[in-house]
């Protein structure tokens, strides 16, 4: 197995170790081990045995013919067809690969090209590397240049392979290290001969560069078999790995590394044409790698619907920019509007109670708490933003407005993280159901499914505040959107409560409640996402600096 570096993978802003717990639940088998060692036939069919509408496994993918003929075909073909997508959107065709799998498909291409070149596969592999694995360009230039192309690529055209290879030990003066010792040597047909130690050192330094390694003194190319012969092992695998990595770097619009730390998955988007349609509809291209990590193919960020990539980008930039000011607004002590005593803000709640006169007020608007009711969403200021003229009078007010949205955003982020922790216990609960009351694994999956639904709802809720922030508060659709936020928020809280239940017996007894509440969250999430996309599409919500 190759030693992949993840140095060029993006860092996910909101990712932390907790994310692992989710993927473990999604993939019941220890897919990590299998996946890393995956040779072609051995990729775990992710999510196949969960009752799952998210991915379609196309059986025809397994037929031999397809493997032979399709450019870069792998057994897992995924299409996103979950609630994050809309019927009008073309389904995203993508596959999750490793560098080894990409290289294997390149090898199959080499096999196909053999009749064209009538060269040994090793030589065609060199040509492919020289042309950055771009078969079309290679074939074009081949018809023009023929033998010149071989010479340019460092291939020997004399037809003789005399003198190529490792030679037995002898007294030898090596011009590189200038030592005269008893040693094995290596040379290509050019006759530039050096001691084996120098050659090993030379190759080792170059395995990670992803480029063809040549003779030390001329442009003749070392083939994979030469490299392995000199190194005394399968070192060329490393070179091919780095070569494929440089290929991925150069094709970043259709190949993306999974941004999760230490994940070695590469998502290959097969129909880059549908991307335009996606951005036209302000929908984002969310993909899931075979380790169960979901991210946006467009911006490499976490799933951020209903926000599109632009809103996400602006929102995140703003959060960074306002970071200092926000700390001030979010943590500043406040004077009680009635008795002017300084009150420290208590925890995450904006429901302030003066310690001196017991006056209850809202931290956001400073108004009486009474009309706010029990839910944060009821904040009169937020619901009737336009009427209360909070909007952008002074810089201070603008910042306070932003602080409100940012606060809601982070609050849901924190809740989502708590839900992930909840996820760990859900795994135990499923086990408990199995062991204590003999429920089958597949029957227990409604718990896992509910958790997944809960997470999707939370994420949608969280990012909906980015969309709402950029929305015109006086527009009717914005008000509908805010109502939708409230409804989803209540639905999510009630499902979250249900998931806290510990007793397996109670869980099984209230099983239909799980189905109903999860189903409701699903519908509410879908409604909020659609409404959010509408806001963006109609330009009511617009990302601005």
């Amino acid at each position, binding site marked *: 197995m190759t030693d992949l570096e993840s140095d060029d993978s993006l860092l996910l802003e909101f990712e932390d170790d907790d994310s692992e717990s989710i993927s473990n639940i999604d993939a019941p088998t220890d897919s990590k081990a299998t996946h890393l060692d995956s040779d072609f036939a051995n990729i775990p069919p992710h999510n196949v045995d969960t009752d799952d509408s998210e991915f379609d496994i196309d059986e025809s993918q397994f037929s031999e013919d397809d493997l032979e003929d399709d450019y870069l075909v792998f057994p897992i073909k995924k299409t996103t067809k979950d609630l994050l997508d809309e019927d009008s959107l073309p389904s995203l065709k993508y596959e999750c690969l490793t560098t080894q799998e990409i290289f294997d498909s390149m090898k199959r291409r080499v096999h196909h090209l053999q009749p064209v070149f009538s060269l040994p596969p090793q030589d065609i592999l060199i040509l492919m590397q020289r042309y950055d694995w771009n078969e079309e360009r290679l074939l074009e230039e081949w018809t023009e240049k023929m033998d010149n192309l071989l010479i340019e690529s460092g291939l020997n055209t004399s037809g003789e392979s005399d003198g190529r290879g490792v030679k037995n030990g002898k007294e030898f003066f090596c*011009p590189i290290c*200038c*030592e005269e010792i008893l040693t094995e040597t290596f040379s290509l047909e050019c006759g530039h001969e050096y001691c084996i130690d*120098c050659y090993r050192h*030379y190759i080792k*330094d170059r395995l990670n560069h992803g480029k063809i390694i040549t003779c030390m*003194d001329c442009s003749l190319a070392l083939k994979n078999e030469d490299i392995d012969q000199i190194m005394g092992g399968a070192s060329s695998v490393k070179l091919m790995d780095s070569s494929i990595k440089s290929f991925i770097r150069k094709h970043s619009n259709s190949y993306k590394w999974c941004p999760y730390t230490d994940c070695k998955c590469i998502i290959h988007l097969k129909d880059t044409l549908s991307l335009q349609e996606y951005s036209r509809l302000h929908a984002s291209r969310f993909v899931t790698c075979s380790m169960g990590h979901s991210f946006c193919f467009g911006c490499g960020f976490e799933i951020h619907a209903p926000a599109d990539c632009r809103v996400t980008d602006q929102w995140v930039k703003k959060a960074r920019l306002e970071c200092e000011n926000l700390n001030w607004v979010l943590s500043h002590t406040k004077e009680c509007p009635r008795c002017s005593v300084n009150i420290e803000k208590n925890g995450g709640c904006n429901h302030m109670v003066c310690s001196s006169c017991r006056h209850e007020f809202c931290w956001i608007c400073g108004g009486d708490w009474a009309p706010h009711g029990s839910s944060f969403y009821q904040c009169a200021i937020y619901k009737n933003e336009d009427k209360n003229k909070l909007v952008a009078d002074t810089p201070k007010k603008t910042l306070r407005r932003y602080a409100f949205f940012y606060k809601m955003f982070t609050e849901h982020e924190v809740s989502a993280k708590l839900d992930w922790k909840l996820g760990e216990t859900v795994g135990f609960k499923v086990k408990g159901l199995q062991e204590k009351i003999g429920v089958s694994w597949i029957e227990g999956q409604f718990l896992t499914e509910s958790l997944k639904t809960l997470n999707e709802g939370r994420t949608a809720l969280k990012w909906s505040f980015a969309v709402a922030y950029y929305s015109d508060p006086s527009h009717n659709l914005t008000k509908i959107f805010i109502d939708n936020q409230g409804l989803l928020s209540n639905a999510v809280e009630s499902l979250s409560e249900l998931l806290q239940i510990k007793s397996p017996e109670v869980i099984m007894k209230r099983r239909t409640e799980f189905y109903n509440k999860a189903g409701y969250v699903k519908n509410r999430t879908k409604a909020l996402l659609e409404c959010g996309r509408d806001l963006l599409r109609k330009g009511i919500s617009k990302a601005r600096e």
Partner: protein
Amino acid sequence: MASLPKRIIKETERLASDPVPGISAEPHEDNLRYFAVTIEGPEESPYENGVFELELYLPDDYPMEAPKVRFLTRIYHPNIDRLGRICLDVLKNNWSPALQIRTVLLSIQALLASPNPNDPLANDVAEEWIKNEELAISKAKEWTKLYAGKR
């Protein structure tokens, strides 16, 4: 300090016994991997009559890794920046262990003879060079007199 590799000893000996015309390279007595180098400006170049001082260092991995070379004398050249760093392929991607100190210094001499403003390291110099070559050359001559005069 680890003993000096045979390769470096050989090269040093040859630089002394069979010097390249217009180039000198002497190892520092405390550190035999560190060389004081001078290169004479090539004839019929803006650097003619100038003597340029450089420093050259052989890293631990030499000859697998290229020598590190830098101009100490100020020079007005599109491929050499204010810190004296040189943009030269054999010092970077095209380095091969079969090359030597001698070949590197010859390449630098050749770079003085034919500046390449299309592959610049010093962008402002390159820009001026492309905009008004005559002016750039006279400036290079002026700097040569100013900073690289024979002592």
